[in-house]
């Protein structure tokens, strides 16, 4: 049986409505609708500026992380990378134990991603295709709490993990991270659209149990949706700040907790802080670079229905 939530299968974007860029514009009919309007030079110019503004802070992080602190105090500022990247990386590894933080973040984000995708696919399937008492009310409850930020429950949550003796242990971040109302809703919508009822009925007539149906029919069909949810979950978990800062300390940090220490006055060397920032951002940037298109698709998909 296939393991749940394996993400190696290249996910297809859920809404393949994008016209292929190679296709020639349809006919010579003057295009009128917003969608078929061609962009003029002004539109290109504005978009390119937007892209530059989006990307510049990343570039600047690289510049600052590869310079010495003295270089950064120069007027006019230097805008090209320098030779000190490795030295600054070494300083961060030494001062903030970024290595451990990266490993912790990987453990936390990986567990949260696998757990969330599994829980949400199970629940999403039930809400999409099974009938049971209280289904409507429970779904409404789930969707309703999407609007309530989890930050508001942080104090009792902290008291709970203190009671359990979990402060400064990774499970204090992993377990609450598995709760994703958005994920349940997302998987439900995905399965409502992609999983035909006839398929399930046919399997039932053949005597398949619901569990069998879930593993042999639902999971394979849901895989692209699971992959998108996994991507979004991984990024959110990797970047989560508030709760890890509360639940963990400098001895067992995630990357974000370590960055907070860097920025919190432990280190005054700007170039070292930027080197830490670069290290903490690289993994998720890598994911984004490889699968950005799927992430865009996932956000747009979630938005239309949200």
């Amino acid at each position, binding site marked *: 049986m296939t393991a749940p939530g394996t993400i190696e299968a290249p996910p297809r974007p859920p809404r393949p*409505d994008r*016209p292929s*860029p190679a296709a020639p*514009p349809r006919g010579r009919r003057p295009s*009128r609708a*917003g*969608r*078929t*309007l061609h962009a003029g030079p002004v*539109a290109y110019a*504005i978009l390119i500026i937007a*892209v530059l*503004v989006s990307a510049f802070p*990343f570039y*600047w992080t690289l510049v*600052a992380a590869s310079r010495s602190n003295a270089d*950064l105090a120069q007027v006019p*500022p230097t805008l090209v990378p320098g030779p000190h990247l490795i030295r600054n990386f070494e300083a961060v590894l030494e001062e903030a134990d970024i290595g451990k933080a990266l490993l912790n973040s990987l453990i936390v984000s990986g567990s949260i991603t696998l757990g969330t995708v599994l829980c949400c696919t*199970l*629940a999403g*399937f*039930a*809400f999409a*295709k*099974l009938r*049971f008492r209280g289904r409507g009310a429970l779904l409404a409850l*789930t969707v309703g*709490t999407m*609007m309530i930020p989890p*930050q*508001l*429950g*942080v*104090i009792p949550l902290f008291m709970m993990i203190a*009671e359990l003796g979990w402060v400064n242990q990774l499970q204090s971040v992993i377990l609450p991270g598995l*709760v994703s*109302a958005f994920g349940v809703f997302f998987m439900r919508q995905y399965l*409502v*659209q992609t999983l035909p009822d006839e398929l399930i009925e046919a399997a*039932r*007539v053949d005597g398949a149990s*619901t569990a069998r149906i879930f593993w042999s029919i639902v999971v394979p069909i849901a895989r692209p949706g699971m992959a998108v949810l996994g991507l979004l979950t991984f990024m959110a978990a*990797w970047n989560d*700040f*508030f709760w890890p800062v509360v639940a963990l300390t400098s001895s067992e940090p995630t990357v*974000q907790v370590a*960055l907070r220490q860097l*920025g919190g*006055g432990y280190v005054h060397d*700007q170039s070292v802080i930027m080197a830490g*920032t670069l290290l*903490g951002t690289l993994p*998720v940037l890598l994911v984004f670079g490889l699968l*950005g298109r799927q*992430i*865009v698709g996932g*956000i747009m*998909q979630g*938005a*239309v229905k949200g």
Partner: protein
Amino acid sequence: MTLTAPVTPPKSVPASRRGSSVRRTWQKASPYAYIAPFFTLFAAFGAFPLLYTAYVSLYRVELQTPGDMEWRGLGNYTALLEDEFFWISLRNTFTIGVLSTVPQLVMALGLAHLLNYRMRGRTFLRTAVLLPYATSVAAATLVFAQLFGRDFGLINYLLGTVGIEPVDWQTGTVASQIAVSAVVVWRWTGYNALIYLAGMQSIPDELYEAAAMDGASRWRQFFHVTLPGLRPTIVFTVIVSTIGATQLFGEPLLLEGKISGGISHQYQTLGLYMYEQGWGFFHLGRAAAIAWVMFLLIVVLVGVNALIAHRRSRKEAGR
């Protein structure tokens, strides 16, 4: 919303199947097994803490001894009302919220309109504007803190080249709030643009064609077709951004790395104020009261938003 057809097995299934009554009971109960993992976690780590916050807010609870709870009634709340820093952070939350949400959504709307054009490299452009979404609050704020540095920051240098005096982005009230908002705007504009883009693509082409027939310019099409068609999406993003703004925490914490949000608390938000009370001064009960106030604030803001949206669409329907 799509209606889901019943998936109960057809009545023709022979009842003679082995252990049919056990099986039928299981068939009835099994859906709950599928939602159980989520709802168990949800009850323990989602719903319960949310409700329990209200209870904790009525007690004196200190961080070092979270087990000892002493009844305080509304004491935590009245103490809040007498604390000037509460009012300062409430005001800051509001001003930073406006400073970050309004430009963010307006710019996102414009970007979405442009991204909706047929053009070369469309997928690349869409992905590129989402790039800031890939960073964390911590990373983004640390970089911006550097860019906004008073003496050697790039932004003050650029301002200097056009003859503007260096701005102290950390101590000035307006300046520091702009700096905090800039991080928020940078991180979320592209994300909202994609949400608007998704909304725009669900507006039927015929509406644009009809508008074009009537001789409407691109601008008029934008205002008279796109904007009304996007109304539900806009309401959605306004609500989500408002909630996000009410929660701002990492940006004001890391601009200087201090939990007071500036020497005179000039950019301390409610989220940061709550953290300061709970984990800086160890007053968990007081922090819970702040959380509850934040929740009420969100309820009011979302309610107002929903009301405005409702009235506007009723007005339009009446025309």
